[in-house]
């Protein structure tokens, strides 16, 4: 065997696949483990044989960028290997995503929780932008959540670098509801500001618990956007009527964000507004956002471990705990043991109780801000 084949075989042996957990547009995702340590991982298997042009672009982009980007708030690519005609990406295993959390009606978000998710999103994004990488597909279900509560930017299948100024790019990126108006108008030269708009939409969605600008078509997306934020004037956004796909979609008045986000603080609305500025060059950058007063005002961001968790996350952490207990008690005899009865009770005391009280209090406020 060649050196390269040998190295690949050795890589492959480091990981085991346990069960299928999901199916994406171009891949099947398995839960697996690192053989040596038992560490849980996700293995994303991409069938390459089916593409007549070989390795497909999404896979190429995802591997290219994740290989370079190592940051607490960006999903970690642990390994890549091939098996026959498949490409396998070994990723850190993440229990859930922000979309599932937003949709879980049993959870109540405190303003501090939203602040924490926003801080982690901006940190991950600032790192990407500092490395000249545009994500181009930010939306709640691409913000994955680890068992310790850390939020990670994932799915770099549409990412690209932007160091080449003045190189035309496609405007067919970003899921519609999170797509900024410059892309809807067909701009081919754009920047980091496109990702910031998406983050603004996610920010709003965290407060509203429902998508902020749910357009039904590309045309309707513009209308929905302008209905919410007012139709931009030439002064708001110089030159936008010259963009390739510009069409007038009607005059809508500007309504202050305050009218929809009744319970939000002034800092909150100020940052939200800066993410949703029409003129891309005036939109806030990820770096500036991180030093925005919003993040320094009370309440401070929740510690990631204290953020609301979905039932499946709680089940996963309980299972992990039980597995731990079993290992503790692993003698030479039969191994399977139930968790000691007082264990769960102990868990419920302290933080969790404080938390559920706080949630109740928050619930009485006019809106989940």
């Amino acid at each position, binding site marked *: 065997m060649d*050196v390269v*084949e040998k190295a690949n075989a050795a890589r492959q042996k480091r990981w085991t696949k346990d069960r*299928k957990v999901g199916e994406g547009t171009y891949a099947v995702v*398995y839960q697996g483990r690192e053989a040596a340590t038992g560490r849980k991982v996700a293995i994303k298997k991409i069938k390459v044989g089916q593409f007549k042009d*070989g*390795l497909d*672009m999404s896979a190429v982009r995802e591997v290219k960028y994740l290989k*370079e980007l190592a940051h607490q708030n960006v999903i970690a690519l642990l390994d890549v290997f091939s098996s026959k005609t498949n490409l396998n990406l070994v990723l850190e295993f993440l229990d859930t995503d922000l979309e599932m959390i937003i949709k879980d009606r049993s959870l109540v978000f405190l303003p501090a929780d939203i602040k924490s998710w926003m801080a982690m999103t901006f940190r991950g994004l600032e790192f990407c932008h500092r490395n000249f990488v545009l994500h181009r597909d930010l939306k709640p279900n691409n913000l994955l959540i680890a068992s310790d509560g850390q939020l990670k930017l994932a799915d770099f299948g549409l990412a690209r*670098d932007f160091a080449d*100024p003045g190189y035309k790019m496609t405007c067919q990126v970003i899921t519609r509801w999170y797509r900024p108006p410059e892309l809807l108008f067909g701009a081919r030269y754009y920047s980091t500001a496109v990702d910031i708009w998406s983050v603004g939409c996610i920010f709003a969605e965290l407060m509203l618990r429902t998508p902020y600008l749910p357009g039904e078509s590309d045309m309707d997306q513009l209308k929905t956007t302008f209905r919410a934020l007012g139709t931009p004037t030439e002064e708001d956004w110089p030159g936008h009527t010259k963009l390739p796909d510009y069409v007038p979609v009607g005059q809508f008045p500007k309504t202050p964000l305050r009218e929809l986000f009744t319970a939000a603080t002034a800092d909150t609305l100020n940052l939200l507004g800066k993410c949703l500025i029409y003129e891309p060059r005036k939109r806030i950058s990820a770096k500036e956002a991180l030093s925005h007063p919003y993040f320094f005002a009370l309440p401070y961001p929740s510690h990631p471990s204290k953020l609301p968790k979905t039932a499946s996350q709680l089940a996963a952490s309980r299972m992990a705990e039980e597995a731990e207990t079993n290992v503790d008690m692993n003698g030479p005899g039969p191994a399977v043991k139930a968790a000691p009865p007082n264990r769960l009770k102990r868990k419920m005391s302290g933080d969790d109780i404080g938390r559920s009280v706080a949630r109740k209090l928050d619930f009485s406020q006019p809106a989940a801000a």
Partner: protein
Amino acid sequence: MAVEQVPSTPVDAANDTLSKRPLYEGSTQYQHWRFSPEQLHKTREVLNTDAIAAIRSTFEADSPGSSSDIQFLTYEEEILLVKLYVTKITQLCGHFRFPEEVEATAISYLKRFYLKNTVMDWHPKNVMLTALFLATKTTNHPISLEAYTSNIPRTAPSDVLDLEFLVAQSLAFEFAVWHVHRALWGIWLDAQDLPIPVPPERLQQAYDSALQYVGTSRITDAEFLFTPSQIALACLSLADHDLALRWATAKGVEANMETIEKVAIMVTRDGVVPSVEVVREIDRRLRLCKNPEKVVGSKAYIAKLAKVEREAEVKRARKAEEIRKAMEDGDPFGSELNDGARVIADLDEDD
């Protein structure tokens, strides 16, 4: 990434070089594709020696004594052959009008490939075609395989695709490359704001000439030994030594000029395309000493295929046995049987 210290607008040019350096140091290029001259030499020497030993034993297995009068390639000869194919990438890129980033990336891929493989196993002609095709994708300038191969004489889509995995694996799937021409561009933007202004014509002339040297540097080992900005500055110094020095002084990095001189010497000394006669002779010998296991249809190739197939058969049998056992073990408990069967169905045959 694929870029070093390139500001998105000229305005950022001021806080360039040093503040951006940590990004480069976190890159796979910095971590995995930089060597000392000794390491680089050793890597190639070992690769060459091991390959010869393996091929020799394949020949001997086929017919004893058959390897004794074969003149295998030395690693220096391997390098000469690869160099020639580096220049072919440049030609093809001109033909396709690919941007410089595609060309530079493909060349890095080809050179990196031969730090993991030998030309006696994989001829650079096909590897070059695959490296270039892969580079069009990784730099976001994709072209259909059909359009690609139909424009290259005597090339079928399978010539490119068959090696794509091997090339990607050899690169350790590290597709991002930090380029010298990008670094040069950063320096050039900077140079427009020197304390004592430089006339624009001189700047332009220096830049154009430096860019030629950047092309030359690509046929050398410079990228494995030095950083993109060091190579860029060396190319500028070859074009306009005084300008390079003034830039370095303004940046407070004139202490580096000694290293820069070394790079410049290397670029002029090694940046020479080998003559056609020399390469033709190497290629002639390569036909006699290339690994028969990689020659489709040869006895050794068929033997190797059979071996791989035998191993796969053993693996399949073992897996079938495992499944049978799992089913039997689960038998007393109906639900577990289903579970077991489902788990097995989820993992498909090729894992």
